[in-house]
Structure formats: structure tokens, C-alpha cells
């Protein structure tokens, strides 16, 4: 297609859902008004690992205002959920595996009545040994948290001759890196609501990233036909991976199934912290070697992922951490093993980046350590090892197009050189030290070596109006706007003129999860496919009518016209009428599934992703060696997104990703049993934010819609490594455990001898 004709793509379009949110309209689950609803609440385990000997609900059931109390015995279908491995009961039947496990569900007339009933339920526990440490969980004699054992999954990636390659390396660095549990801390606590429709369908409003998954899961829990359940995604106030698991959907389904009355369930922030997924803490021991020129030759890594009590997305996290452990670099010899292990900690699931942010902290720290040993600049170290077209990855995939890592490094280069020359050496205030760091990353778009299709429909009605049907949940990232732009581009219409029916299982088909930065690429292609089929029908009819070859016709603003002869036009509505008369359907189905190859279970060789996003961040920090406080002064963030369909949206993702990356790097840590709410879990405020310079790099992906890939998760990944490398540059001492909070920074300052009390450092007068 002639690029000049593209008008809707690459322009800033206003978010379709923003106006109603700005008005304060009741669009979130907690805002919905239902007729005389019951309130739901769950009794959650106070023990981390225990058999349940008895649940006594008699007294609680007789308290005032109680409609019913449910336990596992009341679940009519299969009492196990989980998108990858089904190990997570809705209500535990016999055993609790973490503090927060759901034991009983109360349906009550009021919030107060529900609270009273929760207090009256008596649970008799028989404690079992509690395992908090995944290394302990792997021991042969460790108590089994699940009957299948504590090792949930292993991903191995082997390529080349690692031992021999290490022997030949000039420089080898081996270190262990650790990260913490993190809370997603989306602003909208999990919530849901539901009612039974006149035809008996259970209608459930959900705050979710994957309505079609919820649909299947609720039907399975209740043992009912799919048609009996309808999931409607309400406005969703952020998700970042946690709202890929069920939160309230199953409980609402269960109450509707038995009681038939409208119900609502809104988590308090405390319950959201207690009961939902966390980011996996990873322990990564990584050994990396180069030749004397600094070319990466070999890498060995052992990655331990603590998935807590349940699998959730743990398998995907371990797999992705392993695949991404090399970073965006060519490493000819690799031996990587990632283990995903059950413990009695809170369950860990998907969180923006699926293990790639943790891996990036490790591999990017290694890059700086190696560069230091070799005496070459961190930027050159990255440039000379960066993947390029024709490179092979650790899984043996040959990259053939859209490898924008060099472009990202080159985009950052002038900033890097300038700050290294001047800013870094400018006098800093007393007791403050300046540092500069780089963080690069790659990120495979979509699920790892698995099918992950999306479907969509486009329909034109007799008046020529267009409706887009997509199952793709927009959780604030702006997918509905992007998909409308793609449909609009294809059909020559303003994106705003396209009616969008989104994420309602009654009217849309499965678009897969809003995860893995996959929706622009995969659902974008599905929408483009559907719209393309509609255009094809319209142009075929118009070609007959106008007696012009189809190739010379285009659809634009309600007309079909000849590109070479502007006089030759016909209104789209005329064509639609002809099509209807002929009995042609103008509702077209589109689909897309990226081409991948499953990873070999022993060697991990295969094609995990059809395409990769790339990025590099530059961080400038000022470290206060008296307090351990780190001020991030500036982040320059270059991202290869393939093509920015909605540039303002891409930049918004970059800004938000940088914020979350600063949280990951410097302050966020969820301590099981201690962290309760936003009172003791800090996320970045406006005051923690640096100046951010976003740079959009467009290395077009041939299989992407208009060249697009994805940006949602990539935005977060390089920030923490860049900040940590900058702290190390400032102090001359490295931190190997995240977050780099005040205590760790001070410890590093003391170890480096730059803390004023340290031996040998002269205090300024």
C-alpha cells in the first residue's frame, strides 16, 4: 500500500473510553447499580499450610441477614481453576496452601452482615510444615504442597558447547541476583457484579484481562453449558497481569447459580493484596563469558522462580525468563535452566513482563560487569553484541526482520555520550554522587512457543455503518482505540465512527488474553484480516458496477473510488444494498495466530515468538550517600515498537512503564505476612518521577499490522537495570538484590567507602 494513503495509522487518536471516565460515569464494577443486591465476602485462611479438619458454618448461617454460606462441597462443577495448569480451587476442599486461600463464601444482605458471618464461621486447622524458601521446597524430604510435588515446571535451553566455550573465554563473571515479590497495585481493587437474566443466563460483570478465559472457567466450576454464562468486561482499572486470574468471577457465578439474586463483590485494598497474584521473586545465578574483544561466548544460568501456593502463570514466567536470559545479544553457547517451584507463599502469576524484567536485571548487570573487566564502555559492549538480522537466539531461532536493538542503542548514544562527558563529571552537591547507566532488553510478543490466536469480526449494516466486534479487553492501555484505527484505516473511516463491541462473551469471540504485549500485534492482525475481507467484498461489487479493475479501487469516507479517476465513484451504501440483495453477508470474520514452534523440552530449541520488541533506557541518577536516597534525574527510553499505531498511546505506555520500573528498581517489595495495603507498599508518586525522554523507534515487523509489534511490557523492563547500573556507576559498588532501597544503597555506599563514616573517606569541612 502506498504510505501516503495511510491516514489513521501513526496519528494520535483520542482514547475512545476517556470521556466517560472523565465525566465520572459509573463504568467500573463497583459503580454498577443492581436491584437489591446481595454482598459477597470470602473467609480466607489465616494459616499458610494446614489441613482443614472442619468448617462449621452453622452459627454463622443463623446470623441475621445471611442468604447462604458456601463451601467447596457446594461447587457443582470442577473445583479447580488455572489458565495453564489447573491447581487452584475456588474454595479449598481439604487443605490451605497460603495465607489468603479461600475457605467459605458468604452471601449476605449487607456488608455488615457478611462481616459478622465471617467472624462466626469456625475453621479447625491442623497445621503442616510451612515452606517459604523454594530451595527448601526442592529438597527430597520436603513436605508436598501439591500431590504432584513441589517442582511445577522446568525449562531448559541448551545450545552449543558451554563448558568448552567458558574454557576459551578471556573474561568470565558469575553472580547471583535476587528479586522480591511485587504487588501489581492497579488503582481499581478487584471487583465484580452479576445477575441472572430472564432466560436463565448468569451475567457476570468482571474487572478482567481475559473475559473469554473467565467464561470457560466459570462454566467449568459450575458444570454448566457455556451458553448459560455471559461475561462482560466492565471498565477495568488496570491489571498488569493480576486480572488474568479469576478474582471475583467464580464467587459471583456460584452465588448466582444457587441464589438467583443480583450479587456484588468488591475487594477491599487489603483483600486485593492478600488474595491476588504477585510478581514471582526470582533467584538468578548467571555466569557469562566473553573473548578478549568483549564478544559474548557463553552463558550458564540457573533461575529459580517461587510461584507460591499455585501455578497461575508460573510456567510462562519460568519459560520466558529462561528464553530472555541472554538479553538482546548473540550468545552462541548457552545452558539455561529455569525451575518453577511451589511454596506456601502467596501465589505468583503474571506481572508486566513475565519474568523478563527480573532476567533483565541479571543480564544487564552482567553486561556492565563484563564491560568493566574488559575496559570497554557499557554502550560499546552492548552495541557489539546486539542481535541483528541473521542472528540466532539461544533457542536457535534465526531472526530475519525487525531487529531494532541497534537502532535503540544508536538512538540513546548521543544522550549517553553527552552525559558521560559533562553531566556525570559536573560537581554534585556534598554527599551526593552522580551515576549513569544503561539497560537494554528484548521481549517476545505473545505466548511462548504456544498457539495464541485472536479472532474478530467487522460488520457493515445497510446504512454503511461499521461495527467492530472484539473479545480484546482494554484495561486502560488503549487497545480499543488502536483496533478502531486499524479498522478505520482499512475501511476509509474515522476510527471514532466505528462502533466497537468489546469483551462481552455474548457478542464477541475469543481474542485471547490482554497479556504478553500481544493485542496490537495479534488482535490488530485479526481486525485487519476481518476488515480486509469486508473491503474485498465491497470492491468486488464496486468493480462490477464501475467497470474498473478492483486493484485501482479504494474505500474512502463512505465512497468507493478509482485512484486514477476521481470521477469514478459509488457510495458505499449503494454497494451494501447490492450485496444485501445478493444475499452476501457483510459480517466478516478475521483471525491471526503468530507462527511459532514449540520449544523442545530437553534443549529448548524452537521458535518461541514470531517477533520481538527491543528497547534501551539510559538512566541518570544522583545518590545521597548519607541517606541512601536515589533520585532518578532522567530516563531516555528508546523503544522499537515496529510501528506506533497511536504514538500518544505508545508514549503513555513508555511513561507508565518507566514509573513501574522505578518502583521495581528502588522501592517495591511485598513481604508475605507483613505487607497489608498501600500503607506499607510504596509505588512511585508524581514526585518520584524523573524527566523522561521517550524515543519511538520503528523497525517495521513484516507480519505486524502496518508493521506494529507491542510496547506494554517492554516499557517497564529496561528501567530497573538502567537505574541499578547507574547506582553502581555512582557508588563504585553493585547491588545484587532488588529493590535497591535505602538500606541496600547505604550498605553499598559503606562497602564502597563513600559513606562519610567509612574508613578512609575524608568528610568535607
Amino acid at each position, binding site marked *: 500500500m502506498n504510505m501516503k494513503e495511510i491516514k489513521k495509522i501513526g496519528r494520535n487518536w483520542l482514547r475512545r473510553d476517556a470521556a466517560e471516565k472523565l465525566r465520572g460515569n459509573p463504568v467500573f464494577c463497583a459503580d454498577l447499580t443492581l436491584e437489591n443486591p446481595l454482598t459477597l465476602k470470602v473467609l480466607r485462611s489465616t494459616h499458610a499450610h494446614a489441613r482443614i479438619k472442619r468448617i462449621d458454618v452453622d452459627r454463622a448461617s443463623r446470623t441475621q441477614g445471611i442468604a447462604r454460606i458456601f463451601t467447596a462441597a457446594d461447587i457443582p462443577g470442577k473445583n479447580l481453576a488455572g489458565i495453564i495448569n489447573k491447581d487452584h480451587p475456588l474454595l479449598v476442599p481439604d487443605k490451605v496452601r497460603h495465607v489468603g486461600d479461600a475457605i467459605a463464601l458468604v452471601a449476605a444482605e449487607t456488608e455488615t452482615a457478611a462481616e459478622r458471618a465471617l467472624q462466626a464461621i469456625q475453621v479447625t486447622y491442623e497445621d503442616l510444615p510451612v515452606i517459604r524458601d523454594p530451595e527448601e521446597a526442592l529438597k527430597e524430604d520436603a513436605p508436598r504442597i501439591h500431590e504432584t510435588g513441589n517442582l511445577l515446571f522446568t525449562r531448559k535451553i541448551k545450545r552449543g558447547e558451554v563448558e568448552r566455550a567458558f574454557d576459551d573465554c578471556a573474561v568470565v563473571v558469575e553472580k547471583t541476583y535476587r528479586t522480591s515479590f511485587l504487588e501489581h497495585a492497579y488503582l481499581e481493587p478487584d471487583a465484580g457484579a452479576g445477575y441472572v437474566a430472564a432466560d436463565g443466563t448468569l451475567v457476570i460483570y468482571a474487572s478482567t484481562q481475559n473475559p473469554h478465559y473467565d467464561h470457560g472457567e466459570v462454566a467449568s466450576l459450575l458444570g454448566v453449558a457455556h451458553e448459560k454464562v455471559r461475561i462482560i468486561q466492565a471498565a477495568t482499572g488496570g491489571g498488569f497481569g493480576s486480572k488474568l486470574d479469576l478474582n471475583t468471577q467464580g464467587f459471583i457465578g456460584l452465588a448466582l447459580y444457587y441464589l438467583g439474586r443480583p450479587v456484588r463483590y468488591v475487594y477491599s485494598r487489603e483483600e486485593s493484596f492478600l488474595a491476588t497474584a504477585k510478581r514471582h521473586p526470582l533467584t538468578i545465578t548467571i555466569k557469562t563469558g566473553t573473548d578478549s574483544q568483549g564478544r559474548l561466548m557463553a552463558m550458564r544460568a540457573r533461575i529459580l522462580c517461587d510461584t507460591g501456593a499455585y501455578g497461575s502463570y508460573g510456567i510462562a514466567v519460568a519459560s520466558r525468563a529462561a528464553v530472555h536470559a541472554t538479553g538482546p545479544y548473540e550468545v552462541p553457547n548457552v545452558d539455561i535452566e529455569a525451575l518453577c517451584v511451589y511454596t506456601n507463599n502467596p501465589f505468583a502469576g503474571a506481572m508486566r513482563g513475565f519474568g523478563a524484567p527480573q532476567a533483565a536485571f541479571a543480564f544487564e548487570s552482567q553486561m556492565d560487569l563484563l564491560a568493566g573487566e574488559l575496559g570497554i564502555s557499557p554502550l560499546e559492549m552492548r552495541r557489539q553484541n546486539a542481535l541483528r538480522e541473521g542472528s540466532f537466539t539461544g533457542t536457535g531461532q534465526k531472526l530475519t526482520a525487525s531487529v531494532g536493538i541497534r537502532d535503540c542503542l544508536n538512538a540513546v548514544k548521543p544522550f549517553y555520550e553527552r552525559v558521560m562527558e559533562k553531566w556525570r563529571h559536573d560537581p554534585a552537591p556534598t554527599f551526593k554522587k552522580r551515576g549513569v547507566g544503561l539497560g537494554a532488553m528484548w521481549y517476545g510478543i505473545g505466548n511462548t512457543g504456544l498457539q495464541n490466536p485472536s479472532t474478530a469480526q467487522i460488520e457493515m449494516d445497510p446504512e454503511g455503518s461499521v461495527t467492530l466486534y472484539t473479545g480484546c479487553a482494554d484495561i486502560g*492501555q488503549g487497545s480499543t482505540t488502536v483496533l478502531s484505527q486499524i479498522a478505520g484505516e482499512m475501511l476509509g473511516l474515522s476510527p471514532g465512527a466505528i462502533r466497537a463491541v468489546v469483551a462481552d462473551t455474548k457478542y464477541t469471540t475469543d481474542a485471547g488474553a490482554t497479556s504478553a504485549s500481544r493485542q496490537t500485534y495479534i488482535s490488530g492482525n485479526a481486525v485487519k484480516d476481518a476488515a480486509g475481507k469486508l473491503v474485498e467484498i465491497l470492491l468486488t461489487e464496486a468493480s462490477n458496477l464501475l467497470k474498473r479493475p478492483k486493484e485501482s479501487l479504494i474505500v474512502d469516507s463512505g465512497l468507493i473510488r478509482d485512484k486514477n479517476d476521481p470521477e469514478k465513484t459509488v457510495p458505499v451504501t449503494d454497494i451494501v444494498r447490492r450485496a444485501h440483495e445478493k444475499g452476501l453477508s457483510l459480517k466478516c470474520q478475521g483471525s491471526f495466530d503468530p507462527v511459532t514452534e514449540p520449544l523442545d523440552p530437553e534443549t529448548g530449541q524452537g521458535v518461541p515468538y514470531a517477533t520481538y520488541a527491543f528497547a534501551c533506557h539510559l538512566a541518570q541518577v544522583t545518590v545521597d550517600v548519607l541517606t541512601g536516597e536515589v533520585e532518578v534525574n532522567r530516563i531516555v527510553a528508546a523503544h522499537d515498537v515496529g510501528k506506533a499505531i497511536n504514538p500518544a498511546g505508545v508514549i503513555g505506555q513508555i511513561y*507508565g512503564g518507566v514509573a513501574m520500573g522505578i518502583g521495581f528498581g528502588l522501592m517495591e517489595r511485598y513481604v508475605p505476612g507483613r505487607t497489608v495495603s498501600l500503607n506499607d507498599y510504596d509505588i512511585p508518586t508524581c514526585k518520584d518521577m524523573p524527566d523522561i525522554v521517550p524515543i519511538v523507534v520503528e523497525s517495521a515487523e513484516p507480519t505486524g499490522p502496518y508493521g506494529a509489534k507491542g510496547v506494554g511490557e517492554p516499557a517497564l523492563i529496561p528501567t530497573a537495570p538502567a537505574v541499578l547500573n547507574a547506582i553502581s556507576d555512582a557508588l563504585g559498588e553493585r547491588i545484587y538484590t532488588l529493590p535497591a532501597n535505602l538500606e541496600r544503597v547505604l550498605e553499598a555506599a559503606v562497602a564502597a567507602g563513600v559513606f562519610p563514616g567509612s574508613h578512609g573517606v575524608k568528610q568535607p569541612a
Partner: protein
Amino acid sequence: MEPCRQVPVAFTINGRAVSLEVAADETALHVIRDRLLLKGTKEGCGIGECGACTIVVDGKAVNACLMLAAQLQGRNIMTVEGLIEKHELSVLQKAFLEDHAVQCGFCTPGMLMSSCALLKDKPRPDKGDIVDAISGNLCRCTGYQQVVGAIQDAARRLFGEKA
């Protein structure tokens, strides 16, 4: 448990006079959302950490979850619903829309209320004033940059360039 004592309160909200009986332990947030059914004000944490429930009370930004309903007595309250001007988005809201300051939108009403109070107090704020004003409003999506930009834009549109 004894039912809480009821207290009569009268106040103005979005220009409308309201009088009702509230429980002595009821929060202003509860009255706004569940009694007056103004659902624009959000509950994000219930303990004054996130700012999603920010309202404007006599010109000042306040966390509605930390204010007792009884304290509404005699006050002039504005919530996000009060920003609309003749069914249209206000200048501040339009700036948020056009500057891409809304992602998931859950923090948005609170952000609008904090910036509304700021602009009433200080029509020509500098960036530091804006950062101060919204530093109690958590946002997990935007990284705040486009929010700060939108407030700067709104100030310019309403009151002209900073002197």
C-alpha cells in the same frame, strides 16, 4: 453491636443543597457513593493513601475516605460530576482528554479534583506546584507525565501564559 447514632447534616454538593441523616461513623465517601449515588468518586484504598476518592471541600482537596460524613455539615462540596459545564467537558477535563492523561481512568476523578483545587488556589501554577498538588494521587498507568502536561495546558487555556 449497637447501631451508630444518626446525625443530621446539610451541605451543598455540586451546587445542590442536600440534607440527610448520616451515621456518626459513616465516611463522606460512603455518603457520596452509596447514598447520593455519585459514583465518579472512587474508593482505591480506604485509608487515605491513594487519592482516588479526592473531592473538593470549600476549595480544598480532601480524601473523602478519611472525612466523616458528619463533617460535611455546612460545607460546599464538589465531586467530579460537578466539573461538567452545560453537559460538556470542562476545560480541565478536555485537557486531560486531549493530552492523553487518561489510561485506565480509575485515578482520573481524584486527579481532576486535586488539580481543580490547585487551579482555584493558584491559577498560574508552575510544574512544582502541580507535582505537589497531585503527589497524593497515585496512578499506576501513566507515569504522571501526561497528567502534569494536561494540568499545565488547562492552566494556560484558562488563565493564559504564566506571568
